[in-house]
């Protein structure tokens, strides 16, 4: 199950992770909806970009810029959080949305917990695959933790001081 556009729904995508010893060039990408690692995408782009059901995931030490030429074609990009305390994924998401103009689904995968999801949403994620041992319906609630935010991010082009009349 995942959360997408603030709704809990079935997850019909497979996240492909390279096993020890597998190479990005030779791994077989299964048919159906699949999210492949950036390296696999780069190694097999010629064939994979023919398919409409292939998404790409970025590791936290990879860069949004690596998908500069692909963001207009891809319908799904995921960012992996190896540990929930690894905050690089927030800047990756921000870059994809604010700098590269990515409009498709942006999904947080890996060690995704509800208490980080409000910030993730602000940084540009619109889909979340919370850790399987957690209650996904409870997690959904955290997306509404705050109704007011001070600063600009991917979800909000204007800071509070330009959006409202302050001092009231």
């Amino acid at each position, binding site marked *: 199950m995942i959360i997408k556009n603030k709704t809990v729904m079935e997850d019909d995508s497979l996240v492909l992770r390279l096993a020890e010893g597998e190479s990005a060039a030779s791994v077989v990408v299964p048919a159906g909806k699949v999210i492949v690692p950036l390296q696999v995408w780069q190694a097999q782009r010629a064939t994979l970009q023919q398919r409409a059901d292939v998404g790409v995931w970025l590791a936290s030490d990879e*860069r949004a810029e690596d998908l500069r030429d692909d963001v207009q074609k891809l319908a799904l990009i995921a960012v992996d959080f190896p540990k*929930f*305390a*690894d*905050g*690089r994924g*927030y*800047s990756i998401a*921000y870059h994809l949305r*604010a*700098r590269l103009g990515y409009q498709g689904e942006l999904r947080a995968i890996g060690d995704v*917990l509800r*208490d*980080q999801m*409000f*910030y*993730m*949403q*602000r*940084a540009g994620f619109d889909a979340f695959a919370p850790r399987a041992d957690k209650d996904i319906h409870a997690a959904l609630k955290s997306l509404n*933790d*705050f*109704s*007011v*935010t*001070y*600063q*600009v*991010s991917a979800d909000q*082009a*204007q*800071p*509070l*001081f*330009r959006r*409202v009349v*302050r*001092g*009231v």
Partner: protein
Amino acid sequence: MYRYDSFDHQITAERVAQFRDQVARRLSGELSEDEFRILRLQNGLYMQIHAYMMRIAVPYGLVSAAQMRMFAHIARKYDRGYGHFTTRQNIQFNWLKLPDAPDILADLATVEMHANQTSGNCIRNITSDEFAGVAQDEIVDPRPYAEILRQWSTFHPEFGYLPRKFKFAITGAVNDRAAIAVHDIGLQALRNAQGEVGFRVLVGGGLGRTPVIGTEISAFVPWQHIISYAESIVRVYNEYGRRDNIYKARIKILVKALGITEFKRQVEADWQFTKDGPCTITQAELNRVAAFFTAPAYQSLPAVDAANAALLDENAGYASWYKRSVKPHKVPGYAAVVLSLKKTGIAPGDATDTQMDAAAELAERYSFGELRITHMQNLVLADVKQSELFALWQAAKKLGMATANIGLLTDMICCPGGDFCTLANARSIPLAKAIAECFDDLDFQHDIGEIEINISGCINACGHHHVGHIGILGVDKDGEEWYQVQLGGAQGNEAALGKVIGRSFSFEQMPEVIARLLQVYVRERYDDERFIDTFRRIGIEPYKTEVYSTPVEADEALQAPDYELLKVGMPYDMPYYSPRF
């Protein structure tokens, strides 16, 4: 001072509700300690040796009388009747219970306060000059900019999980009293040749395990762009700062690894996307925030109050306090006053609920209802009429806050140390107490003059030992506490890092070591030369010789530490409430 509008209140209330829910989930076991730890740290809550500690944010060190009374209330209701003012101009309460934490935050919200981001790997509370707005050497009042940056950094969604903590300090004066060179970002507000306000920006300074003096990344960022510029610095750090080793994760390591030229190139490449964008601060927003920091209703007074001058001639005790505690003010007839929280026998920076209530009353009676907390762990009343200084002194004396030691030997900076902190290698507060008792004589202290002794119980340097004229660092040797001594550190415009004099000493040897260092100074000084200036002139060797040439006797009268007690740490997987309660 700044007052919340409905938006600030809303955000603060929603934060309290969020944390209340998180605490409930921790207490029910739904959240593991590992998952909860980061959440509680971002709400200022630490798990210490005996209990939970909460660090409450005091934005740029400024508090109202009502807020000070709230501290007293928290001390009484939730703690053991006292609080501890810190080197980051905040206040900590040391004896809390987890289930009370949401109620404490709710109480704080009623006086427009919070504990947001006072810990954790995020942008921490921004510190500033305790004499902001009143100092004679001020060029730009930093407080409106500090408040604008506070709001920008509060719950910044991209920067909640940085590689490590991130500290800003801001000053607008000629003399830096905010220690901007030892912060991740140091901002010096100034005017360019055209009279326009902007910031000299330092980056990559810090203390801790690898002390570094910050490097200038920009000589002048116009004030309108300071949010976007800071954001680019933090973004590059978030992306490229090391996350594989906690000891190499601060921005100073990244700046050193890349070199300032390359780091600046990356920051300014990022900045090109946002410069002149919506983050640009508008004149209207600056005006709105600056209106909270206009001058209070000063009276027109003579530059020198004649009656006060006469009292200074008549009363030596008053004159001695005045010399140390009363600071010049930009408005004729007014003065800024430092209330000492360094009375010998009391942990440096501690204040009781009674003292806090009384300080609030003094602020209302003498200083337009506001106080400041200093990074030297004292309090300031910034706007006192000279004609009322004598009455203030008498009142402060009754409260134990008029020790005439500001800037002197017993005005030590000291971290909580091994008595409270799980990280400490050694006790800090008892050592400060032992040193203070040894040199308690005020005539002696006035003779020694200005000197800064800073004590940290471990390498994390909460006691700023690297920038003490004498810096003392607690180290662990086979489970026992020892103290390493450094000389020649300094804060401010001539910021410098101290040098270690040699092998470390036991607790019981330390007063004698300090005495020997002072003997060298007294022997070598010229006239009114300060301790630090003598050190700079003669170098470290004479001090080494004096300290190490003969064995240092241990002072047997000092209580030996209970090493078993020191070893009682509380790892994070311990129960989420202290079994002692």
